[in-house]
């Protein structure tokens, strides 16, 4: 971080000329006022006309650069330092859980001077910030990435999957992956396919309110994720987040059936077309669905971490330009997931380009933009026409999961036909062949 982070233009010139740096105790004199306080960093997107000073009562104010008579450095300020509270004693007989962080604000702290998020929480820092963790597990923490989840890419999924495989071989009873929430559903789907048949629970967890707030959901979500990682009787890839607005109700979602359905609520993550596989109330895992793969002692499983990113997810809309399909075909794409309307339709004016795509050997599959419900392409002419063109209906699979699955299928299958076959077969619960009578079953 620079000495004058965030300052630019006229404010930067003035501060440099005055020889002060961030954190210094300074005195600013203007015609109206004399301000005494600590020089604070400037938000990077803010203007260059103000200097931010923290007054002794803790408030920040902005001082107009144009009105400044003088800036005097009174003394060097106290440099901020992270002082975690004491770590609670930990029972060495507890199950071992590995926490791999990839970013997001869940296991991080904010440096207000630079505005930067520091994900580098060690196990001891985690224990001290969330002391309850010491009741459940012996934690080992590792920072794999430190990225916003919108910057996540398929290659990172591969790296996370390989890291998890390594941790499984090391004998951890469960693995927790902290993740930014925006694309956590995609990553959970990717890991579900890459780590099929994994013998322990792999739990993705995030927070909808950043951990720099007292009301953050980070701590309760993290505790829930650790409980699942060390105590759940089932294996596989899951997402643990709030199931409603309260901090004591969490849901465990299957990695291939979960979707972020709200921009900001704590309970943004929902299982789509299925019930959560379990809930967490207090310290207990409840209402566990039958027929989940059990936790196993053997470490036998095959890691398949490859993803072919020459796959696109296209949302159809009125006046959709079929040339977009043509473009993808020309660009050498190998697969397209269509997010069609209703039961799985696109306008008949797209037939030509779609036919061209399937003829050229692309896999083209259909999901629905309705989010809830199943694709049925035998009901209307359009659906039947599309089936004839070779579009593969994907039942009740979420379109994001379909995209990830197609990348994975093309990345791991031996040829297009095997990939097509993988798309249709239910591998890790991504397709249900029965629709619950409830819209949101519990």
């Amino acid at each position, binding site marked *: 971080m620079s000495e004058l982070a965030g300052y630019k233009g006229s404010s930067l010139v003035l501060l440099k000329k005055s020889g002060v740096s961030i954190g210094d105790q300074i005195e600013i004199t203007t015609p109206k006022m004399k301000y005494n306080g600590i020089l604070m960093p400037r*938000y990077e997107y803010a203007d260059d006309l103000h200097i931010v000073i*923290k007054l002794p009562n*803790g*408030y920040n*104010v*902005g001082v107009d650069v144009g009105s400044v008579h003088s800036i005097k450095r009174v003394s060097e300020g106290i440099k901020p330092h992270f002082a975690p509270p004491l770590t609670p004693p930990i029972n060495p007989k507890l199950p071992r859980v590995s926490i791999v962080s990839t970013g997001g604000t869940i296991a991080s702290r904010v440096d*207000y001077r630079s505005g930067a998020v520091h994900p580098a929480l060690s196990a001891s820092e985690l224990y001290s910030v969330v002391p309850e963790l010491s009741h459940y597990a012996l934690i080992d923490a590792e920072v794999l990435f430190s990225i916003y989840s919108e910057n996540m890419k398929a290659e990172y999924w591969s790296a996370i999957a390989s890291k998890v495989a390594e941790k499984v071989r090391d004998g951890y009873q469960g693995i927790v992956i902290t993740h930014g929430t925006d694309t956590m559903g995609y990553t959970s789907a990717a890991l579900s396919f890459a780590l099929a048949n994994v013998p322990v629970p792999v739990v993705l967890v995030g927070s909808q309110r950043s951990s720099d707030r007292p*009301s953050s959901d980070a701590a309760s979500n993290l505790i829930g994720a650790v409980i699942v990682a060390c105590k759940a009787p089932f294996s596989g890839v899951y997402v643990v987040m709030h199931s409603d607005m309260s*901090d004591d109700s969490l849901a465990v979602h299957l990695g291939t059936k979960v979707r972020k359905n709200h921009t900001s609520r704590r309970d943004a993550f929902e299982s789509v077309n299925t019930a959560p596989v379990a809930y967490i109330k207090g310290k207990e895992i409840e209402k566990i669905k039958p027929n989940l793969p059990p936790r196993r002692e053997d470490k036998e499983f095959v890691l398949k971490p490859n993803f072919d990113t020459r796959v696109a997810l296209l949302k159809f809309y009125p006046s959709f330009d079929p040339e977009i399909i043509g473009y993808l075909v020309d660009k050498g794409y190998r697969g397209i997931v269509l997010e069609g309307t209703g039961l799985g339709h696109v306008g008949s004016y797209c037939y030509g380009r779609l036919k061209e795509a399937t003829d050229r050997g692309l896999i083209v599959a259909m999901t629905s933009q309705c989010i809830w419900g199943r694709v049925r392409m035998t009901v209307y002419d359009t659906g039947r026409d599309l089936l004839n063109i070779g579009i593969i209906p994907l039942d009740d699979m979420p379109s994001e999961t379909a995209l990830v699955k197609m990348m994975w299928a093309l990345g791991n299958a031996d040829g297009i036909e095997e990939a097509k076959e993988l798309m249709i077969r239910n591998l890790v619960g991504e397709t249900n062949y029965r629709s619950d009578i409830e819209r949101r079953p519990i």
Partner: protein
Amino acid sequence: MIDYRKMGLKVGLEIHQQLSTKHKLFCQCERFQSDEFDTHFDRRLRPTQSELGVIDPAAMFEFKKGKIIKYHANRESSCLVEADEEPPHDLNMEAAESALIVAMALKASIVDELHTMRKIVIDGSNTTGFQRTIIVALGGFLKTKDRETPVQTICLEEDAARLAADHENYREYCLDRLCVPLVEIALSPVEGPPEEIQDIALSLGRLLRATRRVARGLGTIRQDINVSIRGGRVVEVKGIQKLDLISKVVEFEATRQSGLMEIKSELEKRGAKAEGVGLPLDVTKVFEETECELVKKAIERGGIVVAVRLKNFSGLLGYEPYPDIRLGREMAEIVRFYGLGGIFHSDELPGYGITIKEMKSVKRSLEMSDVDAFVLLAGPKDSIFDAAMAIVERARDAIQGVPYETRGPTPDGKTRFIRPRPGPARMYPETDIPPIPITEELLSRLKKEVPKPWEAQIEEYSSRYGLSRKLALQVFDSEYSELFEEMALKTKVQPSLIAATLTETLVGLSRAGLRIDRLDGKDLGELFISLDKGRISKEAIPQILEVILREGVELEDAIKKTGIVTISEEELFQIVERIVKENRNLIKEKGGRAFSILMGRIMKIVRGSVDGAKVGLVLKKRIENEMKE
């Protein structure tokens, strides 16, 4: 009588006044209070580190209590922002403008750029765990009769949620008040008798009301006071809702703090040192066979007994320099926050079933001498050490005199411990809201809206509307000053009648136990318009208001229900004619003196439907005619 000047009493006032904006501070919800809640959720709050890397002591204290917080929301007055399920929207500029106008009225220096801060408060009163607050201006002064009180800061902030109930393991809050804009004015501490402090608060309240941008009614204005005496530290007393409690609270605090200073000087004489206060020691063993019910129960439940040695404190825990002021009592208040019922201390033992033998054992364990004292605590393992450490802190503070803490008022004007005083470490920037520059254009536009001083407005009420000073002040301080002005201009109803209705009549109804806060300004306005049109008489007003409040009906229905529609002049003539004819003999007999008897009879019939003065005029004329005949 206490000599406040001699003890160096200083009081700083902090006024929190709700603003009457259309929306809340960071969302589009309307300000609206309700007792019906359709949404409920539970949360826990955790302390976080400030931007300087420090955890606030008050926040840590709240967290250690480990309470769950239950929130109750009404969907009309709260949205996802209040539920902390959505980031704040842009700052409500109507509220910012109100705060700037207040700052100008107090001649304060307005800052160049507004920075929204998060003030950490994790008792649950804010769903976020912080209160959003912005310094709008610094400096300035409040002019009152005999003095100018300097202003320290003027802030714009969001109001907190309303506490509904506090239980052992959880606390309940209602969200309707959360995020309502407040202007907070902190005055510099000043010397002076408690009554003068109260007068300053009253003047500040009036200055705020003069802007016509503030909410009226109970709970819309709250006072905090910072009280200190020479040699002691500042104690903050939070949330005084009634003005007349201020002087009592100041008096109590002054007394309490003097008492603590006396204890301090005695400790000083004895050479007490912070190191002399020992760390908590587990003495459960001593009480294995105890007869003390409280200790026995605590041990049976798996709890332990902890003792703290206080070197040189003997006799000072029970010492009462003023009635009810004791160090032992202060310590008991603190441990209650950790879920313990209280403490035992050596000055009150043996007693409560604790024997001399047990006392001696404790003393031995603590290696105590006769000038030392001890404090005993019994309770669950997980909270008792925190409680005991709070006692250690409190005892060390006693050597310093008055500790730096936050207290709350009791209904009778005393104070009780709430929490340690928060420091500047509890402030960090609200990164969701960008800084907002204050432009010269905005300021010059708002300059025109700075109100005349409230004294001038009172003068105007007297000169323009003919109100007595007392009535003028009453209506100005009431919720309805704007309605008063509107009606006085819009109707021909006598202004003093409007003012008296809006103050004395309503106060009377309130004293009769009716909820006058249920009246809406529109109904009251319509009432005066109906009077102006001659549809109702002024005598009928109290009765109509009573029907509205008692039966919860609309104004129109209340008028119909009371049956008070004014009668026409012709109808009045007819009634007077009939009564006069029926009483011809009486008039013959008594002449003009028959007037009051007949007046009474007529009024029995027409009361509420016609102005009594008018009846008098008609009757008088009619009797005169009768007598001429």
